[in-house]
């Protein structure tokens, strides 16, 4: 009975006709915020967004202002997180680093989603040879660990903000394509859809009325789960010197700088690690809560067997 109640709630969140998009979003956010993990995720992400938008106001210094005399210092009242090897304020660099983290992750995930949506729709709808080719393509991309693929591509393309975004987008696209392809195939076999098709409904109509409402929830969850991955890949690439080029304060670049001076000062590593971990944790918790709220069937942990 508890299961039925939860299902009902989830269905209400998903129902396409229930009020405007804004009210539905509001209800979804309330539902997410009711759970501790979801609340944590929302708070972290809101903080992050504030920091990203208001970085010049929040940051005590310019992220590029050097002060060689006070280099590699520990935390103090002047520099809450300490300074790096050029005497730049680490707190300011971490704050501006959030701009790079989200500035890469969000466009990259959007690219992945659009490429995946298109590929998945086409391969799922057409089936046959096209589908097989698409599957081999997706398998080929996923045969590389995402980091290695991005590394190989950036090694030849050269590191730049644009290239980093594209490369991460390509690496993440198959995940979306797979979900969309599966849902498209399922929708095609749906009897309502078959009936509508036989009545001469257009493909666009089917896509808008039957497919999108069903795809929205899993895509939403996937996006929330992929943003932390994209952030981690971006920082990783920057750590290896293949990310957004210096002097950009990418968290990965901060880690690399800190690594070079690891024997002298740990603060760059600590500050950047903390920022990275908090951000990825926030997004992951939001993603998990979204999954619980939007699709209880997906979360095994909460499943409770119906009694007889």
């Amino acid at each position, binding site marked *: 009975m508890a299961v039925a109640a939860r299902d009902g709630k989830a269905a209400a969140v998903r129902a396409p006709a229930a009020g405007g998009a804004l009210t539905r979003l509001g209800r979804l956010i309330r539902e997410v915020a009711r759970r501790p993990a979801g609340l944590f995720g929302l708070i972290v992400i809101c903080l992050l967004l504030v920091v990203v938008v208001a970085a010049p106001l929040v940051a005590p210094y310019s992220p590029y202002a050097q002060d060689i005399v006070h280099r590699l210092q520990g935390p103090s009242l002047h520099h809450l997180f300490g300074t790096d090897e050029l005497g730049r304020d680490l707190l300011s660099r971490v704050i501006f680093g959030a701009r790079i983290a989200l500035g890469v992750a969000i466009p990259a995930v959007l690219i992945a989603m659009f490429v995946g949506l298109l590929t998945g729709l086409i391969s799922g709808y057409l089936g046959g040879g096209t589908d097989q080719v698409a599957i081999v393509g997706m398998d080929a991309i996923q*045969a590389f660990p995402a980091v290695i693929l991005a590394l190989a591509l950036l090694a*030849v393309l050269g590191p730049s903000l644009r290239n980093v975004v594209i490369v991460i987008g390509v690496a993440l696209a198959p995940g979306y394509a797979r979900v969309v392809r599966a849902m498209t195939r399922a929708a095609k076999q749906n009897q309502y859809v078959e009936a509508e098709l036989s009545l001469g409904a257009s493909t666009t109509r089917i896509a808008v009325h039957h497919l999108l409402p069903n795809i929205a929830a899993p895509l939403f969850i996937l996006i929330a789960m992929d943003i932390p991955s994209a952030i981690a890949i971006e920082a990783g690439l920057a750590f290896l*010197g293949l990310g957004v080029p210096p002097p950009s304060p990418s968290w990965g670049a901060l*880690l690399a700088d800190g690594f070079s001076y690891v024997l002298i000062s740990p603060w760059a590593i600590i500050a950047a690690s903390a920022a990275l971990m908090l951000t990825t944790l926030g997004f992951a918790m939001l993603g998990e809560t979204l999954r619980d709220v939007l699709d209880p069937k997906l979360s095994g942990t909460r499943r409770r067997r119906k009694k007889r």
Partner: protein
Amino acid sequence: MLDYALRRLVMTFFVVVLIMTFLALLIQLVPGDPVRLVLGAKAPEELVQSVRHDMYLDKPVPAQVYYFFANALHGDLGVDFQSQRSVTSLIWTALPHTAILALASLALAGLLGVPLGVYAATHPGGWLDRVTAVATISLITMPAYVAGLLLLLVFSVHWSIMPATGTGNLSNPADYLKHLALPAIALAVTWIGYLARLVRTSMLEVLNERYIMAARSQGIRDRLVVYKYALRNAVIPTIAVVGVGLGTLLGGAIFVEVIFARAGLGMLIYNSIQTRNFPIVRGGVLVVALLFVAVNLLTDFVYHMVDPRIRVVS
């Protein structure tokens, strides 16, 4: 099963062909002249021409792809731009260190993650369950390089009880293990959390199954029910994930090897990217991808062998 295996093999073949074509063409994406990029603007024209010839860059594109395939089939992945050493032998020297690292962290993850998951599942709502729930998601989201750097900071720099860099020598197992410990833990961190969660979830589901209740109703001891009857069914779904996970593991290995200066495949790829030594990058990436594809294929088959239901159905 046979039909399935055949289909899977054919698909894998096409995937490998696609990967190799992509890698063969990768060098075409380099803006400018890749050979000049490495040898520098002042290199004599004859040297540049001879390297171009060695790399088939003076041939038309389809021929380049053909030679890459033909040579790779003979185990020849080209030669190092600078030292003129065979890429295959370079990879062959580095590969064992990466394989050992990956297997060690996988073993570590299994040894710690599985019992943690089982405990959490058999004590749902208990304090350790709550703690692990938060701990596991923190571990899962922690990138390998963050784990590596923090371990380095604490154990090698702050306490100086572990070696910070180097691979150690395989002829001195104790020393080798000492060098292996931190990198393996750094790489395993994500997987400890991930496995614990997976096992907990599937264990909770399995413990709810009717056959567990039936086994209990027969008076079979709880420990036997949990560790023999439930665990096997709970671990089966995780096998499928471990295959995919090995890819992430190989990806994470590059960071860990760079941080701890381990002479593995990741370090090799990283160093050659720094020096724009494309044949090594290409060869290294190809080996990683092939390894990943092979492991995936293997786990897929193991998965089908372990679960007798799938064995018959498919």
